[in-house]
């Protein structure tokens, strides 16, 4: 029957759909960490999910769906930030954060929040989403060295020193 919605096997779309349904909190958290507002974060996730499914056929391999989805979601975040023109980054303020022990955790959060968007993305993807540097480079469409230097810069703001074996 022609009208019945014949479900063609579509491995790319299925991969994207599966990931969206499993990892939606990751995308939402990432969006929240930039926009700090539930309704805006939700708009970002919705728009990203919509675009990802709609354009899933442009994905080269189902196996790339993971990095591809992070990229789509981050692009939505950037688009949103551009729109609002809120990429305000006060480097000095971030540097001046005090590190008295009792305030340490609050300062740590503030240090992460006040990072430039690209540096924050690297920290989040590396330590919270536990991705490899190569995958992060792929998501951000940068080379691995650029990602590394952002990682160092970000960690420095968190007053974390990276040792050889961490790389």
């Amino acid at each position, binding site marked *: 029957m022609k009208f019945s*919605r014949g479900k063609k096997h579509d491995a790319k779309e299925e991969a994207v759909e599966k990931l969206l349904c499993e990892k939606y909190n990751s995308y939402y*958290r990432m969006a929240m960490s930039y926009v700090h507002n539930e309704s805006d974060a939700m708009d970002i996730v919705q728009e990203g999910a919509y675009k990802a499914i709609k354009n899933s056929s442009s994905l080269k391999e189902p196996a790339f769906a993971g990095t591809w989805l992070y990229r789509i979601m981050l692009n939505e975040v950037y688009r949103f930030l551009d729109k609002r023109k809120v990429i305000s980054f006060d480097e000095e303020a971030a540097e001046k954060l005090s590190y008295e022990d009792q305030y340490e955790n609050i300062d740590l959060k503030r240090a992460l929040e006040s990072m430039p968007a690209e540096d924050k993305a690297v920290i989040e993807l590396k330590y919270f989403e536990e991705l490899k540097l190569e995958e992060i480079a792929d998501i951000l469409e940068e080379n691995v060295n650029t990602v590394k230097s952002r990682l160092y810069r970000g960690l420095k703001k*968190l007053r974390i020193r990276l040792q050889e074996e961490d790389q």
Partner: protein
Amino acid sequence: MEERDKEKIDFLKQDYETVLMNEEQLHRMRDAMEKGREEKRGMKKIKYIRNTGLVAAAALVLVALPNTSAKIAEAMGNMPVFGGVFQAVTFREYHYEDEKHLADVSVSKLETVSEGKAVEATKNTVDEINAEIEKYTERYIRQFKADMKKDGYQSLQIRSENISESDRYFVLKLTAVQTEADSYEVSRFYTIDLNTGKRIALADLFAKDSDYIGVISENIKAQMREQMKSSEDVDYMIDSEDFPEDDFKSIKEDTNFYVNDKNEVVICFDQGDVAPMYMGSVEFVIPSEVLKNIRVN
């Protein structure tokens, strides 16, 4: 990394992971996925309209072939009974009004009331269609509720009505009108063959191997030219010099249609599909004469 630094990362990670999407947000994401899926399959087109306040009508047309014998069911009282086979039962009412937002939703679902042929299959098909109407309605309502949080005027109206009824065909049209900055239009129809209890397509109205698509498309083009000649207010995307690639060329297997009470095939297009947006949704009644050699049902 030193132990102390690892603790910092762990703290930040734990803090990061306290953020969770709730049930309503998950629904909204799934709706967005569904929207993407439908557009990908070309089942639904979203038209972004630049001017605010434009109204787009979304029509969901349901065509059914009722049992010809049963008119008895009409005696069933106040309940509207369609074609002797179905009755409409209100299943969703939603009304909301404040200064900027207006929602007026009253949608019926179909219930089979008489014993036609293929009762079980028909019931299954009706269940399926009801589920889809419900899904649409809930989605519009959820979208409306979500949009209320934004600035600007929003309105939503959804109604279902029986637009055509004959001994043989039954057509229910579900119309959703959304008013906001961006609006979009959906048209869908379901045809139930009561002999088999299954949905049928436009192709099922015509003889196998007949070029119904070509015949109907040529007739539509002739009608477009005729209408444009007789009125300056009418415009279709045809014979255009500037954008010939956007011209209407042919209907497709899944182009919307219904059968009117004169048993004529009516082809329906969404706003913006074959005519400029200001023309709204357009319909073409294909004269029976044109189809007489190929029509079988």
